Each structure stands twice: as C-alpha cells, then as structure tokens.
C-alpha cells in the first residue's frame, strides 16, 4: 500500500465508566478506497470514527490523517475529513442551504455557492434548498447530512452506519452515491453492521469485535480464502444417518435427515461431485432437488465473530 491516508497505531479507548471500547487498534486506510468496518453493535466502530474526527479523546495511541497528527496538528487533519454521523443530528428550523453553508463556514472555507449548488444537486436536494430541515423526509435528511459533510470538499469521508434504518430503495441509492464519491477521488470509510452493504461496496473489510480489530482483508481475497461452496441435495425420503458408502466425501445430514450437504473447494480441479453423484445413485438414494450455495460475507463474518469468543457483543 502506498502512504496511507489514515494511519492508526495502538489506538485504545477506556471510557470513564470502565468500558474498554478499543484495544490497541492498528489500521491503515489507502487513498481512494472504500473501507468497511464491520462489527456488531457496541463493537467500537463509532468510537474509532469519533476519535479520528476529534469528538472522542483517545486513551492511548496515535492517528494521523494525510500525515497530520489529529492532536498536535488537528486543524490540518480535520480539514481533510468529512463526517456523517449515524444519528440525524440537525437544527430542525434551519433551511437546507443555510445549514450546508454553516458547515462549510465551520471549516474556514470561503463561500462557494456554485460548489454547494453542485453538491445539493448531486444529492437531489437542490429543490429543497429553501425548505426547513423539519420539512424533509428521513431519506432527504440523511442525504443532507452527507451534503453537510461534503460542504468543505473533504478528501476523506467517514460514514457511520449510513443506511441504518433506511428502506431498501434508499439504501441502494446511497450505495450508488458512495461509489460515485469514490470515483470522484474521495476515500470512504464506512461502518456498518449490514454485511450486505460491505459485500456490495467495500474494497477492503475490517472486522471489529469487542474493541479488537480481528481482521483486515481485501474483500474478494477474504471471500476466496474463507468462503466455501456447498452442494445441497434435498432427499425424496429422509434418512436416519449418512450411509457408510459416502464416508469419503464427509457429507453432512441436515434438516432432520432431509438434506445431504457436501462442502467442496469450488476452485479445485476435482471437486468430487461427479463421483459423489454416481455413488448416491449406486446406493439408491433418491433426491428431488439439488442446489449449490456459496458462502456470503455474512457467513464469514458470523463464523469469524463466533470463532473468536462466542457471538456478537
């Protein structure tokens, strides 16, 4: 990886109440990538984002943004970051245009109506520029939060649970928007507990659990490495046990004996499927349906999280 745009080293956070939200996290984010930080609720995703953005103080560790330390050189570091928080925090009585201009002003940028117009148009909010925030729908408010975060032309955008609680259509619109932003050169770091979201968009995936970053991997490499393929045969009649004749394929019996499941390496030259099918026929086992299944990122995520200590925290 070339010089990372965000570099996190030994980051820890112990809240006053004694909750250890982050434990010695190291992470590099590459310029121009979409990085998805996955984890169950309470895993430490928002704490990590809030520390980088200056809202939460780290207990230990360092973070640099484009080479600027977030504590000693906070102005330069924050100048490069846009943040879309999970909650829709807004001033209900402010008009759309005023609140976006306010966000740009906070970052010390001179007024640039043409740029703000472009952002609002791209987010389909231009027609609502004079409307008060309280008049907007939930989806519009979420887009407005993105417009505010983009108002100062940041190179890095943090999206904390960007599609939490939004309907399927809006979620797809949001994904398209995120891709569009990445294409325009913005580095995207998003947190989500929707695995589908990471699978759909991310270049790389990090999995965080109980404050520990347990894995960082290229999404496709991860799915190749940890993913598996299965052949599922639905039997005409349930059977009590796996016949001895099928022992060499290590098939499993599921659904009360109604399904035979064979797990194989999809990329191997010999999958073992033809010989298995012949043996099943020889044994007189009749099946009424046949399907294959490739494990999703979700399967991998659930397996990872449960392997490391039993369930989401």
């Amino acid at each position, binding site marked *: 990886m070339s010089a990372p745009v965000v570099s996190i080293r030994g980051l820890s956070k112990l809240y006053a109440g004694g909750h250890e939200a982050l434990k010695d996290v190291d992470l590099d984010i590459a310029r121009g990538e979409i990085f998805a930080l996955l984890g169950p609720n309470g895993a430490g995703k928002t704490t990590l984002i809030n520390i980088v*953005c200056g809202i939460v*103080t780290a207990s230990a560790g360092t973070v640099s943004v484009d080479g600027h330390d977030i504590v000693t050189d906070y102005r330069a570091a924050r100048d490069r970051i846009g*943040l879309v*928080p999970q909650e829709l925090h807004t001033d209900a009585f402010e008009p759309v245009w005023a609140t976006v201009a306010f966000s740009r002003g*906070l970052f010390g940028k001179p007024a640039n109506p043409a740029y703000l117009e472009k952002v609002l148009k791209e987010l389909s909010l231009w027609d609502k520029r004079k409307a008060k925030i309280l008049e907007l729908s939930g989806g519009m408010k979420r887009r407005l939060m993105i417009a505010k975060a983009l108002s100062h032309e940041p190179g890095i955008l943090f999206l904390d649970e960007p599609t939490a609680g939004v309907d399927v259509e809006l979620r797809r619109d949001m994904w398209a928007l995120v891709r569009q932003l990445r294409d325009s050169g913005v580095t995207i770091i998003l947190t989500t507990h929707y695995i589908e979201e990471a699978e759909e968009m991310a270049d790389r995936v990090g999995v965080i659990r109980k404050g520990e970053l347990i894995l960082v991997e290229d999404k496709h490499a991860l799915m190749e490495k940890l993913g598996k393929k299965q052949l599922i045969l639905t039997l005409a009649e349930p059977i009590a046990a796996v016949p001895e004749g099928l022992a060499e394929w290590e098939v499993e019996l599921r659904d009360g004996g109604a399904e035979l499941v064979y797990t194989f390496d999809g990329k191997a030259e010999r999958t073992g499927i033809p010989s298995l099918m012949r043996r099943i026929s020889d044994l007189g086992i009749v099946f009424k349906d046949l399907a294959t299944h490739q494990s999703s990122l979700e399967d991998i995520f659930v397996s990872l999280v449960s392997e490391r200590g039993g369930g989401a925290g």
Partner: protein
Amino acid sequence: MTAPRFNRRGVWAIYRFEMHRFLRTIWTGLATPVITTSLYFVVFGSAIGSRMSNVGGIPYGSFIVPGLMMLSLFNESIFNASFGIHMPRFLGTIYEPLSAPLSPFEIVLGYVGAAMTKAIGVALVILATANLFVPVHVLHPVWMIGFLLLVAATFCLFGFIVGIWAKGFEQLQIIPMLIVTPLTFLGGAFYSIHILPEPWRTITLFNPVVYLISGFRWTFYGIADVSPGVSLAATAGFLIVCLGVVAWIFRTGYRLKS
C-alpha cells in the same frame, strides 16, 4: 492547502448561526424586556417611587435604571450563552464544531460573542425604554460601555459554563433562578446598600453582584456604594475565574468530549 492559524470564518459561522436564531424570535426577545422594564417603572417609578426620597441626590426612578439594566444583562447573558451551547449538546449537533478545525477559544468566541451581542442589545433597549419614563444621564459613557462589555463577557462565559454543566433544560434555569436573580435583587439593584442596617450591610459586601451594580451605577451618576476601582477589580476577577473554568472544560472535555 494549509489550515489557517485562526479560523475566523468558523467563528463567524457560529456567531451568525446564533444571531440568526435570535433574529427568528427578535420580537419576543425584545418585547419581553421592554414590557418588563415598563412594568418596573409603573410600579417602582410611579406607584412607589413618587413616595420615596432621592437616593444620593438622584430621583429614585433614575436611580434604579443601571440596576435594571444589570438585572437584564445578567439574565440575558446567562440565558443566551447557556442555551446557545446547551442546544447543540441536546440536539447532538455539537459534533460539527467539535470535528471542525476550530480551537476551543474560537468555539467560545463564536458562542459567547453572539450571546454578548444579544445581551448588550437588550440592555440598550432597556436604557432606551427607561429614558421614556425617567431622565437618564450617563456621566461616563466610555466606562459605561466598558462595564457593559466586561459584565456581558463575564456572565456569558458563566452562562457557557452553565450550558455545559446542565444535564437538561431544567438545570439551565436553576442557576439564574436560584442564585443570580436573588443576588441581583439583594445586590443593590433597587436600593443603595448604605440604607441597610448592620450586619446586613457588611454581609451584602460578600455578594459579588453588589460590585457590578455599584460600578455600573457610578458610570451613570458618579455615585457608588463601593469604589469603582474595587468594582472593576471584582468584575475582572470573576471574568478570570470563568475563563479558567472554560479552559478547564476544553482541556478535560468535561461533558463535551467523552
């Protein structure tokens, strides 16, 4: 691009946002002090004041004008500054200034500057209203403006602290209602502390508001319960304490950052 050393546009954004909120409710914001001041003059000026003798050679109606201005300045400063910072904490929008390239000083300057503007505006409206009822003469106008600025800055900083400290809107009201208003009424807003018998007169000297009102009244009529220099020093002392507390809040992140 290098981030500016002083984020003046950021300060201006906060200031303008706060002033815009005030301007949305400007009529109620100004009508309230005008009506309240008028009522004070109806009650204290016409009904009771006419039966009272002059205080230090000043007609009673004129005598209470600086105290009334201070009373409003205290309340408006605390209310506006505490509400200004408490509201974004309550709504969650505080994430914006906290994640922007703004120093603590710049954040305070934006919020406190706007609260000062509003509070001083209201105090001047009261002065104008009072002028309709009683003759008001300002002997030391430059000192009067100086005192207004100093007291507004001090109480706005105090209000900022209250706004950070308060866990809800109820607590926002506690300090002004239970502490500031009683101290103001007992601090010589409507009388000279010289008319109090001992030991109350000595006890009153422990009330910091006495020094603020006395100093401010001196700028109008050249008469004071305590020396104007002592008043100035007491006000400056309170300002320094408030600045110290605000600095501590930002250093520790008290109720701003976890």
